[in-house]
């Protein structure tokens, strides 16, 4: 075997999205020699897809907003399953993180008095989302990218080398975390361009790899979202938290095939958009659940009046919570009342008083998106939409303050970490999540490095094992095509562990995944190692399979419906289940490990935080014993 290049850093950040870049910036600001490893080019991360904005209680538009209100909204959105400490830190620190971006050159939309403008969004009590039109994610990535360049320019001035203390390894994929005993000692990676291996020796590693969407067939996520961070953490001995919570957005594009899954923003429905089936029927009226009957209109006339007069009318059922709408669309399609391409119709045609012009003015991005990608003019034709896998709330179990995972030296931030969003994420909270916890993980990693007595060493055997593992797909003859296996994995997850889950289907999914495990271990590729997409997919399959197993197991275990986890056979939310976190780890033979799932009690909320809520509200979520004393007393009285 040829010599493998080695590079030494203090902190290695895996992932170059918002969280990764923010973590790297912080580690470098703390004086640590830092590497960023990215599967894509620098600045291409999936964060660019975020449209709505970054939620931060700056109070620029409504001065009543503050961190306590934001905290409450976040906990409600997550159905009280959130790690409350994370929700607290997030709400408190988000404004500073946004202002910091502005100090690095970001240009947000402005209020009349020149402050950062904030917009309304689902689940947020006040206008709270700092935004730049509908491309806030791009602004965040570009700003962080340019801050990194600014730091590199500083290093160039001081050391004559841009990369002296902060280097971006673009198009490089990590396949293994390396351990010295139980501590992190580095990572093993390959450079996509050449296929050559490289070892990064580093005592601290920050995972910021994003989500898992590519395990599902229909997703708004890009190819990079193969659950790498989740799987790497598991393989290194860390744990994953509440993986059953996967957010499905009810309206993704279903056609053309190239953009299947791409989001159709919720504001289409907020702006008079209605859902129809192939019979032309506005079907949502048939799907108003008993508990919502009081708040939602029962006739089309009343629903239509709501847009102009929300005080005297009930809202139309198109605006039910995401999971309800997704479920309804699912049922219509299953009953063969779907649109030609397997979705339902979402239309704004003739719905706005100002006609086509108003549609273009209110929904410019959607108009553009459908025009360019689908050749559909939404002012004349309906859109075809269906549910799409959007975000995973579950992730690496971390310490809220430092982002530290259970493995010493391992940190995680952003979508690949768990806890912050509970069972359901509010729109707008993800971008500030990246910034708040990206920074904290970078800081945590730097402090960890400072406190180290000795640096862990990378052992030759581990490198050899990782290298052999990565080359296996080339050595196999007559193995399966990785694309075929991937498609089957996605189909399995979509069909059996999708939006609406049932015990039988989940068991079936676990059996299928069991069989897929053998097939993943048997995929083969041919050709050279330079920029070989088939090989890359073959290596990613291991990760997708691991997270899929975690999701399926946790989904089978949790016998209730909450946020991003809907069980057809257990449709209600249970206060007893709220006290439980489901935690995955790997056990058994390290060469062929198995996912093990454990229940773990949720830490009770701190006294001063719990009193931010009205007792009436707490009763909906907590068991009687959990209620604050006064509330429990009141209950008895």
């Amino acid at each position, binding site marked *: 075997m040829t010599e493998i290049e080695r590079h030494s850093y203090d902190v290695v950040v895996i992932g170059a999205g918002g969280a990764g870049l923010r973590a790297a910036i912080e580690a470098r600001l703390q004086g640590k020699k830092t590497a960023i490893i990215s599967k894509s080019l620098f600045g*291409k991360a999936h964060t660019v897809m975020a449209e709505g904005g970054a939620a931060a209680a700056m109070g620029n538009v409504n001065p009543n907003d503050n961190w306590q209100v934001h905290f409450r909204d976040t906990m409600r959105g997550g159905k009280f399953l959130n790690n409350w400490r994370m929700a607290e830190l997030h709400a408190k620190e988000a404004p500073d993180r946004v202002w910091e971006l502005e*100090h690095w050159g970001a240009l947000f939309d402005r209020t009349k008095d020149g402050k950062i403008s904030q917009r309304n969004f689902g689940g947020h009590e006040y206008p709270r989302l700092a935004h730049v039109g509908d491309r806030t994610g791009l602004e965040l990535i570009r700003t962080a990218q340019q801050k990194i360049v600014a730091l590199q320019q500083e290093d160039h001035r001081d050391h004559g080398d841009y990369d002296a203390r902060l280097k971006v390894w673009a198009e490089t994929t990590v396949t293994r975390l390396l351990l010295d005993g139980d501590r992190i000692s580095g990572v093993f990676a390959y450079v996509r*361009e050449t296929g050559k291996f490289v070892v990064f020796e580093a005592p601290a590693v920050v995972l910021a790899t994003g989500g898992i969407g590519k395990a599902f067939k229909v997703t708004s996520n*890009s190819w990079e979202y193969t659950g790498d961070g989740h799987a790497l953490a598991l393989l290194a001995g860390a744990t994953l938290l509440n993986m059953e919570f996967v957010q499905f957005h009810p309206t993704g594009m279903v056609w053309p095939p*190239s953009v299947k899954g791409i989001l159709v923003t919720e504001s289409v429905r907020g702006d008079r958009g209605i859902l129809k089936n192939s019979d032309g029927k506005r079907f949502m009226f048939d799907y108003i659940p008993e508990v919502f009957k009081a708040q939602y209109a029962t006739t089309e006339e009343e629903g239509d009046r709501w847009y102009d007069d929300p005080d005297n009318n009930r809202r139309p059922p198109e605006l039910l919570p995401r999971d309800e709408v997704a479920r309804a669309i699912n049922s219509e399609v299953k009953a063969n009342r779907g649109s030609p391409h397997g979705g339902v119709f979402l239309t704004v045609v003739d719905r706005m008083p100002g006609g086509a012009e108003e549609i273009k003015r209110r929904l410019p991005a959607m108009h553009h998106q459908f025009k360019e990608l689908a050749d559909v003019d939404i002012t004349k034709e309906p859109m075809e939409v269906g549910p799409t896998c959007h975000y995973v709330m579950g992730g690496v179990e971390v310490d809220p303050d430092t982002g530290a995972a259970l493995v010493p030296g391992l940190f995680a931030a952003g979508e690949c970490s768990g806890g912050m969003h509970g069972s359901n994420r509010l729109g707008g909270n993800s971008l500030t999540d990246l910034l708040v916890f990206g920074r904290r993980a970078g800081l945590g990693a730097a402090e960890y490095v400072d406190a180290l007595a000795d640096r862990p060493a990378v052992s030759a055997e581990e490198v050899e094992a990782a290298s052999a593992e990565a080359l296996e797909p080339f050595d196999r003859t007559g193995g399966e095509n990785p694309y075929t296996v991937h498609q089957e994995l996605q189909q399995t997850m979509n069909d059996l562990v999708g939006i609406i889950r049932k015990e039988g289907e989940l068991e079936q999914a676990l059996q299928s995944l069991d069989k897929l495990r053998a097939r993943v271990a048997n995929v083969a590729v041919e050709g050279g190692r*330079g*920029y070989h997409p*088939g090989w890359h997919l073959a290596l990613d399959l291991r990760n997708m399979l691991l997270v899929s197993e975690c999701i399926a197991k946790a989904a089978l275990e949790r016998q209730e419906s909450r946020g991003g986890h809907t069980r057809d056979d257990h449709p209600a939310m249970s206060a007893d289940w709220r006290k439980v976190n489901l935690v995955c780890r790997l056990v058994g033979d390290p060469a062929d490990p198995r996912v093990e799932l454990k229940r773990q009690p949720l830490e009770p909320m701190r006294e001063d935080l719990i009193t931010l809520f009205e007792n009436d509200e707490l009763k909906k979520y907590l068991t009687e014993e959990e209620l604050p004393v006064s509330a429990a007393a009141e209950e008895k009285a």
Partner: protein
Amino acid sequence: MSYEAKFRVWRGDAGEGELTDYTVEVNEGEVVLDIIHRLQATQAPDLAVRWNCKAGKCGSCSAEINGMPRLLCMTRMSTFSPDETITVTPVRTFPVIRDLVTDVSFNYEKARQIPSFDPGDTKPGEFRMMQQDVERSQEFRKCIECFLCNNVCHVIRDHEENKESFAGPRFLMRISELEMHPADAADRRKIAQEDHGLGFCNITKCCTEVCPEHIKITDNALIPMKERVAGQKYDPLVWLGSKLGIVKKGQDTPSA
């Protein structure tokens, strides 16, 4: 609605390569990237192509389709007739890694040479900027860095030797963005002309023509920048004024 389309795709690495013919299924509603993926999955598993979001938002899948620089994910197959042969080649201005993937490091090197945003003495949270003041730079910040503008620009596309002294439309636009940023305290006019080659630009507008974000690069970034440079460097009255001490010259920011 599906048909068999004729494709010619450049295959090769390290410069050596050739256009390879394929016949491949095309279905209704597909884009060129879908067809490339179908080739990958069925006929050429090692066909290299760079892509990410598939929605025209990340700027990864830049290539040339029938000779025109485009994003593979934003070129609908319905824009071609079924009997047309569609030629897909890597972008020409940058060295090829393999097949359709090129080494775009030129762009990242140029990005590093442009002095970053300089907030002056303003502290975080203290910025007060008006919407009309941020809008010009906001247009440029829509850029998804697909580098199609730098690829199409004849200054470096047809003259490799100019690469050293020309940053390309993308980064001249970045200078414009910072110059128009209401809170930026630096002055990059001198380096725009002297270090980054604004004077090479002969405003033939190909950058604007290929921009998938429809940013008016030439009219809104490059020409205003040329005018600003002219005001500082080529205006005889300004020159006279500075000689007479009427016009005060600020501090020029050096390249980073």
